[in-house]
């Protein structure tokens, strides 16, 4: 974990409520896809945890949805604004377990952390399929970016306005993944868990106090004892999950 100041180099809307923000600064603590940063914002006591979408030597890319005061404030930040971040939080996805044909499954704002993971797996010459689940056409983002990486992309929408009508699991059940990586709302994670026989990793969300393991605010039960979503997670392996 590192604490530092970052400069907003880009902050633009991808959909009506989803934004992409690029931040320049020290990225050395960010070591695995699926990790998150914790952002201090004016007038708000607790930091806001946001998953890392991509990282380079000089920049961190975040994609976030405006859901409350904190993310609303973020959406209004101009280029050049400075933000105080804790970086390198959480364990992240273990890409080494993917097998040759991993399937990455993202629902809504669960999609962003899969981007860097897909990039990493494709660099290792894996055959990567990405299932992106949204409610409707207007909510879709990053479909083209995943395609540009070289992944096979399947989009599902609940209302059928684009791609397969239904849920991510309607696409997943036609595939034979070597391994799955999932991030999205809890009901989606559970449905993926129950749909695929393949081993996999699941990224969980919980209301956090600190984000780095000190307060025990985000503890969950697992088959291997109590785990802190922020420090021992947010990614849990299929075999340890207790629903």
């Amino acid at each position: 974990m590192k604490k530092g100041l970052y400069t907003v180099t880009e902050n633009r809307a991808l959909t009506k409520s989803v934004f992409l923000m690029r931040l320049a600064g020290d990225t050395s603590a960010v070591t695995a896809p699926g990790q998150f940063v914790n952002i201090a914002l004016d007038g708000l006591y607790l930091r806001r945890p946001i998953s890392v979408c991509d990282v380079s030597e000089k920049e961190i890319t975040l994609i976030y949805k405006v859901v409350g005061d904190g993310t609303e404030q973020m959406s209004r930040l101009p280029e050049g604004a400075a933000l105080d971040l804790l970086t390198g939080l959480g364990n992240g996805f273990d890409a080494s377990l993917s097998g040759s044909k991993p399937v990455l499954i993202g629902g809504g704002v669960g999609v962003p952390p899969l981007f860097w993971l897909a990039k990493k797996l494709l660099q290792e010459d894996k055959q990567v399929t990405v299932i992106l689940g949204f409610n409707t056409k207007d909510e879709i983002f990053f479909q083209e970016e995943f395609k540009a990486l070289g992944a096979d992309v399947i989009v599902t929408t609940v209302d059928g306005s684009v791609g397969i009508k239904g849920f991510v699991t309607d696409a997943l059940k036609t595939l034979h993944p070597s391994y799955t990586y999932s991030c999205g709302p809890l009901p989606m994670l559970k449905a993926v868990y129950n749909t695929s026989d393949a081993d996999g990793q699941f990224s969980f969300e919980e209301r956090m106090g600190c984000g780095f393991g000190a307060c025990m605010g985000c503890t969950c039960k697992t088959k291997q004892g109590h785990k802190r979503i922020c420090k021992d997670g947010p990614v849990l392996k299929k075999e340890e999950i207790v629903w």
Partner: protein
Amino acid sequence: MVDTSVCLSGLTLDNPVIPCSGTFGFGYEFADLYDINILGSISVKGTTREPRYGNDTPRIAECTGGMLNAVGLQNPGVDRVVSEELPKLAAVYHKPVIANISGFSLDEYVECCEKISAAPNVGIIELNISCPNVHNGGMAFGTSADSAQAVTAAVRKVTDKPLYVKLSPNVTDITEIAKACEAAGADGLSLINTLLGMRIDVKRRKPVLANTTGGFSGPAIFPVAVRMVWQVYNAVKVPIIGMGGIRTARDVIEMMLAGASAVQVGSENLVNPFACKEIIEALPIEMEKLNIAKLSDITGGAHHG
């Protein structure tokens, strides 16, 4: 050179800054961030006789100037704390620590205290009779003078280590409880624990916390803590560890002027993991600005003249 050292029941601390129980885990994980040996001491995660998962999530809520928690004393139980957690801390932190203990019955408090007192790196026992997030325990012991006195007396019999009782602000008159603890043999008092609070999610029309209520902490409670330390300082002779919303070196000095001999920093660790380090580094500078040569001289300083 200013002198930042303070004394608690014969134990000299290099400075008065102690991370608060529940905001610093068992301490050793912070050793990756900075040399934690600069800390005056560490009050470790609240420990009970049995292992505890704690409350369901969400356990955390936010409010203006602070936060609410309803963790509910999650800890691995006293046996594992003594055999694993405290030794791990001793490997990276070479000073005596404060062991914070809780319970749901007198027997539990006594057994927990006996076991944890045997750990070589425990310098002070902090008897938590003020946790608002557990039922039929914790705060139930700290909200009446009789039960506070009874649990203090029972624990007093089984430990030779300095015994500090951590008081609840959720009472009509904190000085009555403070006096009862002192009479029962407490060597000192820690105050304040969190204030009982609650938030409601207006979209869902339901409490934010799974436990409904939680403990309110953060900078917003600082004036309440200063007032209670002030009152208790007037009511007892034993030393006070002051806490509640401290976030700067100036806050430390204010709390000591109210009557604290040392302080604990809580919630601020959660939003700034370097908070204690920054406060310790700023203390000598603030002391010079305020013409304080020896920090321990200012305890209760606002009461005189």
